[in-house]
């Protein structure tokens, strides 16, 4: 590490500038869209802004020409919540299971990795075909749900690996030593200590589902999720309503993300508080 009172090398400033450009690259276009969503009623899809209004936002709710925004929005939120819950439960359990050596662990692991890197359209295709062959209908809450899980479960599992890797098992042993049953040990010690990681898994489960397109494309059935609606809009909507949708859906994402991150931060800071206080060497 560089000494804390050393000046920074020139490379730091070069890198920092580079990083700043990258952040601008990441956020710039999105900000453009948000600004444009306030386009005046007579404005077009690009700059300049022809007045500022909420016209296009109200168009979202009122016009049915743009599609079933409200309905798909509700479906997406509900689906995302469901996916988040299922992902948390299954990933946490599986993560705990992977702590031991067991026959078939390699198979399970590679299955999850394969599911992660398989192109979403293929997975959707497979599910749709399977259902078609069985003569069943696809729907967002059955096949759509399943397809999205093939994407969120591997993510959840990898996050649990990272979290459990840092988890010191002597806490669990101490709990057993003090007389805890398996369930008490899990509910009093393991679960609370893993909580930040679990919130992370829930966050990923929710947002990955909420934004998911490729896997849902063929498995959503007759009723669209929000990303599918937006995708349809990109091809046949030529007004800033599209930007309004983009702005609204991103705001929802941000709310969820910030809620999750602040709760994690709150938990961590409460537990780590006092690290600066006098301690002897470990």
């Amino acid at each position, binding site marked *: 590490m560089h000494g804390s009172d050393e000046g920074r090398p020139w490379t730091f400033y070069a890198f920092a500038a580079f990083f700043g450009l990258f952040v601008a690259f990441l956020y710039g276009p999105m900000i453009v869209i948000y600004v444009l969503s306030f386009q005046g009623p007579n404005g077009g899809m690009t700059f300049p802004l022809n007045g500022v209004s909420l016209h296009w936002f109200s168009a979202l709710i009122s016009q049915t020409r743009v599609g079933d925004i409200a309905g798909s929005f509700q479906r997406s939120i509900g689906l995302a919540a469901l996916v988040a819950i299922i992902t948390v439960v299954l990933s946490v359990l599986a993560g705990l299971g992977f702590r031991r050596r067991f026959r078939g662990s390699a198979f399970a692991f590679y299955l999850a990795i394969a599911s992660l890197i398989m192109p979403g359209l293929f997975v959707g295709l497979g599910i749709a075909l399977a259902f078609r062959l069985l003569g069943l209908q696809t729907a967002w809450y059955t096949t759509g749900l399943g397809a999205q899980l093939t994407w969120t479960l591997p993510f959840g599992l990898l996050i649990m690996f990272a979290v459990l890797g840092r988890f*010191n098992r*002597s*806490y669990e*042993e*101490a*709990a*057993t*030593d*003090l*007389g*805890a*049953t398996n369930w*008490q040990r899990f509910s*009093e*010690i393991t679960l*609370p*200590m893993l909580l930040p990681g679990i919130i992370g898994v829930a966050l990923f489960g929710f947002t990955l589902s909420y934004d998911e397109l490729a896997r849902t494309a063929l498995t959503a059935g007759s009723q669209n999720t929000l990303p599918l609606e937006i995708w349809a809009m990109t091809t046949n909507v030529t007004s800033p309503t599209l930007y309004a949708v983009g702005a609204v859906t991103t705001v929802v994402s941000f709310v969820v993300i910030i809620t999750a991150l602040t709760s994690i931060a709150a938990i961590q800071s*409460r*537990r*780590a*508080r*006092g*690290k600066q*206080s*006098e*301690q*002897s*060497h*470990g």
Partner: protein
Amino acid sequence: MAEKKGVEATGSGEVVVANVTKRFAETVAVRELSLTIPHGAYCCLLGPSGCGKTTILRMIAGHERPTTGDIRIGGRSVLGLPQIERGTAMMFQSYALFPHRSVLDNVAFALKMRGAGLPERHAKARELLTKVQLENFADRLPAQLSGGQQQRVALARALITNPRVLLLDEPLSALDEYLRLRMRGELRRVQKELGITFIHVTHTQLEAIAVADTVVVMAQGRIEQAASARDIFVAPKSAYVARFVGGQNVLLGNVESVMNGTAAVASANGARFAFPVGDLRPARGAKLYGSIRRDRVVVEKLAPGAKPAAGLNSVAGEVHTIENQGSYVKVTLDLADNEEFVANMPDEAFFANPLDIGDKVVARWSASDVKLLDDGLPQEAPAPARTAMAAG
């Protein structure tokens, strides 16, 4: 919820390890080990990493199961017993204080597991915190405490269930040197006050001797010697124990002659020693090992050009290193055949005529200070080690 009954400290805290072997997937950590620790003893398991001492501790605690053999506490086998009925409590090397619970809740945890109500267990926990002088820290989080304070909380947490046996897994290794020395005395004091059995695992020789009534020196899954702290130091049984516990030089040679209970032994580099052999009659040429305490050795500088006088119980060599240890000076000699020999000289004696590195010296000792070691002697079937309660 009805409070579950635990075993109170009124029962005997005698621990019997009966012919226990522990195998992990490819290794044997403990081999047919038998050990009896009387009630109320402070016993240290001492040995290098990998010798099996921690495995034994964990088996007594119930965190591992022996592959074969039995473990009895207070006369009753504890294999497979639920934690509440074992009467043991463990203090972990890293303390393992639950970071998300306050100090008070940490200490009260075991009572919560047994179904005690909140006011009751908090009151009991405060009592214990007062005993370790941390009552003002009850509402803090473990991360806000210093290392020494965390250790006291860990101790209080383990003691709240009135265990018959307290198991300590390298309790002092997480502390810095100064605290370590202070806490040694504390542990000893607490044990005497409580009167329960303490089993303390460590790899530090001086620590073991400082705190324990009985020291069990282990190597490779077996007991090398189990004896009082005093005996381990002054009367090590084998070369391994002598070397590990320290403070001794190991002498090795072949028997030249035996007379009146003393064997004249010649070492490879020409030095000759007298070993007490008692009633034994080792054959000529047999290999014998002996030990001489480092502080019973006198070192004299050889005048330049002088030859060391031939005689028993001396070695000649060159000074290799000099280490000031305060009340004594540790002088390491290089002997003729590159063997090492150490003398601990009292500080005043050393500084009256200081030695330099490279000086040619002679080290002498008296025959009555030499002890015979077991190595090379015909062995009887080993009896299960019983540790005696040493006085003080």
